[in-house]
């Protein structure tokens, strides 16, 4: 077995997994709180990427330092993604909290269609190049055949986001409130937790991580269009379920596992069936662990 080939596939899978993870986090958090598959989450990611593109091309004319542009673009991308996320929640999900779950799912699907076409019409259906703003790091030069700067930035950023999020969920007051709300929203209300606020915060955090993912992946692939959110969203959803939907470490683990499955499946078998590997792996995992890798067993109290 060729070790360096294996290692390249491993790193490639990890890059992929990092991106999935950034999107899957939002899926899993929203699911945890309001038990909704937020089908339009991929669109939030797309809007984040688009906002970054718009901001950076406007700023590009000023001749600003690319790193500064990247920073401003990312911040604005996060802001607008979060704004879209929360607005979407208020319009399409909040009125449906008491409704059958499927209705909320259809509402999310409608929202996804709407946002895709909104961007398509307001901007363009074509792929647009995304400026390459991440510089080539000197220290990566020896290994840049295996790991380039963009990949490196993706891996590091994902790691930082994960750590921050873990701290937030585990130790802060709002984090505990989020966990409490996800376990029993009514009880949380009875203790004085404003669940609307908690839900809003959840959407903000989920959308923000998705926006970060959007900016990073667009830098990686160098292009974007209005449709990038859909496919990435589905994959992230698979990752979240694989890890156990509702569980934050699960979403991360699931994303990496999915990334590796695809990477090794492509590398050692064939990329023709890349998605098939992903789904078959998912089905196998779910057969043996019906709640995902780290999912809590849905204990039906009898």
């Amino acid at each position: 077995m060729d070790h360096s080939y294996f290692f390249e596939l491993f790193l490639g899978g990890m890059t992929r997994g990092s991106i999935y993870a950034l999107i899957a986090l939002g899926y899993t958090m929203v699911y945890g709180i309001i038990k909704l598959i937020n089908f339009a989450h991929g669109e939030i990611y797309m809007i984040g990427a688009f906002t970054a593109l718009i901001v950076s091309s406007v700023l590009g004319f000023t001749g600003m330092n690319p790193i500064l542009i990247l920073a401003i673009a990312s911040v604005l991308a996060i802001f607008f993604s979060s704004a879209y996320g929360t607005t979407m929640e208020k319009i399409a999900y909040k009125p449906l909290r008491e409704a059958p779950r499927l209705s909320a799912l259809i509402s999310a699907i409608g929202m996804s269609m709407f946002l895709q076409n909104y961007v398509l019409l307001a901007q363009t259906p074509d792929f647009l190049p995304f400026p390459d703003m991440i510089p080539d790091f000197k220290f990566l030069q020896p290994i840049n055949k295996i790991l380039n700067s963009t990949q490196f930035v993706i891996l590091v950023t994902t790691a930082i986001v994960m750590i921050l999020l873990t701290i937030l969920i585990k130790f802060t007051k709002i984090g505990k409130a989020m966990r409490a709300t996800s376990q029993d929203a009514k009880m949380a209300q009875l203790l004085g937790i404003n669940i609307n606020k908690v839900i809003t915060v959840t959407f903000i955090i989920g959308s923000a991580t998705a926006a970060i993912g959007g900016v990073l992946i667009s830098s990686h692939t160098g292009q974007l269009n209005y449709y990038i959110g859909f496919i990435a969203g589905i994959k992230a959803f698979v990752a979240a379920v694989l890890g156990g939907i509702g569980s934050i470490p699960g979403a991360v683990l699931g994303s990496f596992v999915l990334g590796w499955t695809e990477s090794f499946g492509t590398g050692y078998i064939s990329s023709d069936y890349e998605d098939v590997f992903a789904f078959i792996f998912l089905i196998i995992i779910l057969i043996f662990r019906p709640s995902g890798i780290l999912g809590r067993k849905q204990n039906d109290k009898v």
Partner: protein
Amino acid sequence: MKKLAMILLVLFVAAGFIFAGGSKEKGPIKIGVAGPQSGDLASYGIPTAKAAQIVVDDVNKAGGVLGRKIELIVEDDVCKPEVATNIASKLVGDGVVGVIGHICSGATKAALGTYNESKIPVISPSATNPALTQSGEYPNFFRTIASDDAQARTEVDFALDKLGLTKIAVLHDKGDYGKGLAEFAKKFLEADSRATVVLFEGITPGAVDYSAVINKIKNSGAQAVIFGGYHPEASKIVSQMKKRKMDVVFISDDGVKDDTFIKVAGKYAEGVYASGPKDTSGNPAAQAAIKEYEDKFGDKPGPFYLNAVAATEALINAIKVAGSTDYDAVTKALRSSFVETPLGKIKFDKRGDALGVGFAMYHVENGKYVELK
């Protein structure tokens, strides 16, 4: 009671209107334009409709054909076969005498049966699937673009004769167009002893990352990649390969021979080879057509624009030559009389492929596609 009666009445009246809409009368000559007008593939369909409009406007300004004006009916098939059949029957019902379109090969195949039975000639500016002309099943089909196998032939010949490559990876985007092309390329390469196909793979369009496939290419030791597909995936693969400092020749097709590719891939596009219709930008007719478009719509024409102009001109010319809109006469004229178009002087062969439309190889040099002689 009254309410229900009213509802029924309204329904019947509505039905009556629909009925009235379908009737034929001697008026303008109707030509259908079918292709995606909405959705993600609209950028391929809309230029066609605009091209047809420009040609028709010119013809009408000059008094029309056979003393009649020409009227265009533009329909959206979203590139879906199931919609295309419905559109086809709508156009047939509207009494069109010819159709410019469809854009995607699948939708074209689905719709052709309907046109064929109604004896309506169809000229596509973009459907490249070889079976459309080679199977002999679509006598009413013509196209102003060369078929996939001709294109694959050009690419393979170029790779072997000009570049002298021996180890080639063939990739495709699993799509109708890309995979068909890749398969022909593979077939031609395998038939030739000079080179071996070291990898034949389909990639997933829209995937966030292609590093696994790229590693695989690297691991296969390929000197070159022949890619069948469109420019978004091509630019992702090219730029990711270049970022890895891989020194692999990239050869692709018409779907990549698009200025957008160069703009999107930026500096990474440099050195890429792509096949595409022979450069006719020196042709005054083409220059005129492009100028007309820019004057009218204020931006650059999209893909297949010239092919669509050629298709429309060919159809109108055939009607003129035939002296009627009769199917047999028109198809005969399409096959027999040359017409001056932006693509050059063309007529169609027995199978429906345009004579005089061929492929050439292009090379990206200093951010521009340059035709290789």
